[in-house]
């Protein structure tokens, strides 16, 4: 066993927590804006984000991940999900695991137990990034304005996930449904993305869900 100091980093529900978009006060914007908005934005708040690294070609690693999570390791540029848990390919030896808030400590322990003895890394990065969900008929138009990556359905089927250049910065785009997309954004850029997305979706109408 490694001597990694694994501990509960989530202070629990009784502690006051602020999301990266706390200052935007999204809750106060619910129901405002145009009817039949083309874009609906929701922050998927305070989830557990874990970076998992290991050798994807090692069958022991793949089966250990499957044993711990019940998910197969996704191949390049894809994301797989089971319920509220998703596992995304980030690089040839790196995956992003997103679990419901509060479960990250238990899941990390499950992973470490299932992968004991292997050369792996699990890091809780929940505080460093957040997830925005964009839903609606015009989301693809907003994305097309923001990134040079081809988001046409022929090139970007449901279940694909890519890291790319977006509005002069970098983020991860995930397509989770026909008209549903997710953006994995860095905490320090949250305000920038919030302002960018408001501006880019203004012509289609933007509505907020809490």
């Amino acid at each position, binding site marked *: 066993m490694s001597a990694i100091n694994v501990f509960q980093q989530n202070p629990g529900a009784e502690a006051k927590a602020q999301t990266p978009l706390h200052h935007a006060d999204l809750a106060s914007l619910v129901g405002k804006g145009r009817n039949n908005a083309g874009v609906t934005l929701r922050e998927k708040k305070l989830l557990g984000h874990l970076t998992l690294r290991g050798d994807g070609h090692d069958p022991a690693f793949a089966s250990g991940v499957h044993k711990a999570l019940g998910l197969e390791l996704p191949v*390049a*540029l894809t994301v797989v999900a089971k319920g509220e848990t998703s596992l995304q390919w*980030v*690089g*040839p030896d*790196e995956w992003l695991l997103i679990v419901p808030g509060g479960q990250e400590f238990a899941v990390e322990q499950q992973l470490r137990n299932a992968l004991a003895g292997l050369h792996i890394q699990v890091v809780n990065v929940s505080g460093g990034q957040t997830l925005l969900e964009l839903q609606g008929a015009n989301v693809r138009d907003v994305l097309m304005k923001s990134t*040079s*990556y081809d988001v046409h359905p022929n090139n970007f089927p449901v279940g694909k996930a*890519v*890291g*790319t*250049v977006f509005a002069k910065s*970098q983020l991860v785009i995930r397509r989770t449904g026909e008209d549903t997309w997710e953006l994995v954004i860095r905490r320090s850029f949250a305000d920038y993305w919030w302002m960018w997305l408001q501006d880019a979706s203004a012509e289609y109408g933007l509505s907020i869900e809490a």
Partner: protein
Amino acid sequence: MLHIFCPHCGELRSEEEFHASGQAHIARPLDPAACSDEEWGTYMFFRDNPRGIHHELWDHVAGCRQYFNVTRDTVTYEILETYKIGEKPQITAASKASAAPSTVKGLGEKV
């Protein structure tokens, strides 16, 4: 704008997602302490500046964040192939010279 084939992502990506990191295939001396100042300085600071085929290290910074190698023609900026770290280039200055230019093939393409 070039489209560059990332060998890890397995698809063509926009040039702005990448960062060039200089010459590839620079072997670190196995025993740095045994190097003369000249040997160490050559390893550390001196780089090739060829006219024509050049093997380079590139980083897919905005995507999978992995390094990989590129064979590029410094005259035309044409990227002839990309390959993973540890692999050997298919196209070298020697092979290019012996083959007709029109037979050069690679994963990178001009758009």
